[in-house]
């Protein structure tokens, strides 16, 4: 088979396109007459293929020098190891002789290079080489340019005859095709997410055949509620070290080699689309974050300015809003998810309760701004937003069982100009609720009860009040190393129930009764009158607040 194939013509065709020029690139139009592994004794126009290994650098350099004498058409160094720089004088020699020395990061044999050479020669003979080159791999790019990501996904679905979707790294749906997953797209994605978080490491290798970090696709067998088994094949959509998502296909028997090759061919195109969206989102996010910061810190001079700017992102601030602030600590699982992924997760949940919600991150806390109806009853408004908080907590606990979650909700204000107050209240509720409501992670500012009033009272007055009611008891505990304060706190938290209190304190009810009597004696108050209970309860709350939230007292 003849065909004057030049070095560059060989290198522009897959899979040889991922090459690195080391020297002599001016000779790229040298004709390749034959391909030889190693250096032949004679052979002008030979493409010399040398395997590269760091331990054999000297030998390889000697071989390159010999190839220069032939003179070879080009020298290809193959191997996945990183090639160190060639000696300068050798590079100069190759440049002068115009013999390209190129590194190909693959470990396939020279026979495959020969196969590509034969293909190019054939295509050139048939006068189809340039047509082939123009169109190779560009179908997917043209499809995406014309019909978007959804168009490409639909095309792939038709070819493999199975439903296909693109999902985020947090397993939220980005787009799917026309075919429906079994039992449903949402349920399927949920099963995949569950499988990832419960079985763990399943995406680090195929469960069939060779298990290796680089084997793709990752295959998960899913058991649906009805008992049927299906297979989810996941392809990573990665650029460099950043993961942009997964391409997931649902089949009954798994994908064959052709289908896998097709998915892998489409992968970079889909990744590049996601990258573009991400870059646009990043710029948008930066402006959005600045807008939300200014909104929540009262940096807008007028109501009209807020409305106008909000419209840029399609947010309607003519209607009132409410704010929730959340903090998630630890236990985020095997992979540290970024705030972006958490936000995606939360926005998915928020969409089930409110039509339009704004999720942002400020000061390492997640802020959720949801619409509120002025005409709604206060009770209904509160119940709705608490329900959302519960759903988010449920979802996060499902995904990250070891994490702890705290949430504070601010009060309703009819005007968006007061959102700064709502935001500060939400943060206060979250901080105080953590210590004051020992079982509940979600606190509305109104539920802080008397603490809400006390948050506005001066610290000296609070300290005086606390000292007046609890000073003697605190002093007694310090002097006698007793825990009467803890006993009183638990007793009041359990609303005076002796059995529950003694259970929590791990003491006998009679011991508890004795302690209560002692407390009454020290304080000079009866714990049976409501007035005393209210005062003591308030003093205790102040004491806890000072301990955990405000630290030491101020003078």
């Amino acid at each position, binding site marked *: 088979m003849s065909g004057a194939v030049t070095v560059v013509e060989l290198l522009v065709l897959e899979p040889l396109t991922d090459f690195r020029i080391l020297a002599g690139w001016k000779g790229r139009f040298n004709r390749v007459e034959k391909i030889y592994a190693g250096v032949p004794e004679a052979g002008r126009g030979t493409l010399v293929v040398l395997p590269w290994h760091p331990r054999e650098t000297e030998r390889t350099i000697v071989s390159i020098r010999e190839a220069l004498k032939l003179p070879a058409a080009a020298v290809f160094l193959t191997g996945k190891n990183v090639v160190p720089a060639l000696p300068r004088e050798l590079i100069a020699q190759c440049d002068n002789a115009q013999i390209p020395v190129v590194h190909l990061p693959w470990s396939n044999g020279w026979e495959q290079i020969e196969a590509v050479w034969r293909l190019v020669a054939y295509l050139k003979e048939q006068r189809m080489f340039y047509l082939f080159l123009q169109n190779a791999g560009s179908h997917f790019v043209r499809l995406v340019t014309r019909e978007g990501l959804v168009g490409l996904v639909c095309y792939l679905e038709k070819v493999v005859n199975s439903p296909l979707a693109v999902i985020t790294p947090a397993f939220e749906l980005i787009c799917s095709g026309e075919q429906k997953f079994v039992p449903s797209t949402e349920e399927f994605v949920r099963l995949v997410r569950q499988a990832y978080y419960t079985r763990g490491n399943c995406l680090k290798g195929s469960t069939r055949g060779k298990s290796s970090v680089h084997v793709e696709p990752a295959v998960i067998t899913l058991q649906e509620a009805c008992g049927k088994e299906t297979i989810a094949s996941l392809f990573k959509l990665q650029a460099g070290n950043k993961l942009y998502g997964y391409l997931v296909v649902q089949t009954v028997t798994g994908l064959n080699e052709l289908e896998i090759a097709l998915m892998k061919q489409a992968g970079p195109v889909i990744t590049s689309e996601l990258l573009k969206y991400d870059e646009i989102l990043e710029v948008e996010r930066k402006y959005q974050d600045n807008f939300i910061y200014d909104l929540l*810190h009262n940096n807008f001079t007028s109501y009209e300015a807020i409305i106008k700017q909000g419209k840029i992102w399609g947010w309607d601030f003519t209607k009132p809003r409410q704010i929730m602030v959340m903090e998630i600590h630890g236990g985020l699982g095997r992979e540290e998810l970024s705030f972006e992924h958490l936000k995606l997760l939360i926005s998915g949940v928020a969409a089930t309760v409110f039509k339009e919600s704004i999720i942002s991150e400020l000061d390492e806390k997640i802020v959720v701004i949801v619409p509120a109806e002025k005409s709604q009853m206060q009770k209904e408004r509160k119940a709705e937003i608490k329900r959302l908080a519960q759903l988010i907590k449920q979802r996060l606990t499902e995904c990250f069982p070891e994490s702890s979650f705290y949430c504070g909700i601010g009060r309703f204000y009819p005007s968006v100009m007061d959102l*700064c107050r709502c935001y500060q*209240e939400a943060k206060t509720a979250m*901080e105080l609720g953590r210590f004051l409501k020992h079982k509940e992670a979600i606190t509305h500012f109104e539920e802080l009860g008397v603490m809400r009033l006390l948050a*506005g009272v001066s610290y000296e007055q609070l300290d005086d009040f606390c000292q007046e009611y609890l000073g003697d008891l605190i002093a007694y505990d310090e002097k006698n190393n007793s825990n009467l304060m803890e006993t009183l706190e638990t007793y009041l938290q359990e609303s005076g129930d002796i059995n529950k209190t003694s259970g929590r304190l791990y003491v006998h009810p009679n011991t508890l009764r004795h302690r209560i009597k002692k407390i009454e004696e020290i304080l000079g108050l009866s714990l049976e009158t409501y007035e005393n209970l209210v005062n003591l309860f308030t003093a205790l709350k102040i004491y806890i607040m000072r301990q955990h*939230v*405000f630290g030491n007292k101020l003078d």
Partner: protein
Amino acid sequence: MSRQLGFLMDLQKCIGCKGCAMACKNENGLGDTDWRRVMVLTEHPQNFFGFLSMACNHCANPACMRECPKGCFKKRRDGIVLHDPSRCTGCKSCIGACPYRVPQFNPLTGKVSKCNLCFTRLEKGLKPACVEACIPEALQLIDLEGPLPENSQEALPGYFSVRLTRPSVRFILPGSNIRFWRQVMCNQEQGGREL
């Protein structure tokens, strides 16, 4: 937000000259109002005798912003909390809310005012007046988002530990005292010269 400006107070260096307080008064034409106060510290656990200069702490969670019914307070992107006197009705809610008693009520104007971290000076590339005036360099302007001195801390035991509002101030605590007179006495006993 990429910045949170605040103060670094080096208690080892502060000599209680009140230069910072005077500079602040002068810069802002305050009359009888004090935006910056210098207090004597007498109850430090290590029995330290020293001084604490305090103005607005430009908190991350400003209690004044939460309580103000008129929306007078705003927090800029550089972290400075500003008070807008044009909206102020003198209700004093902010004074009660602030754990540090920072906002000051002026009976002549009937409004509250407070330290604004000399933001106009900052915009011109100058330091705040109090920082500029501090001769021993005990008071410095810092960005809490940036690197902080290793020996700095958030709390001043016995005086300053309000975690709810998260004040943007850091302290370098004093070391142990050096007793010069004792050194003199020892030298005299040994027949040495007075230092």
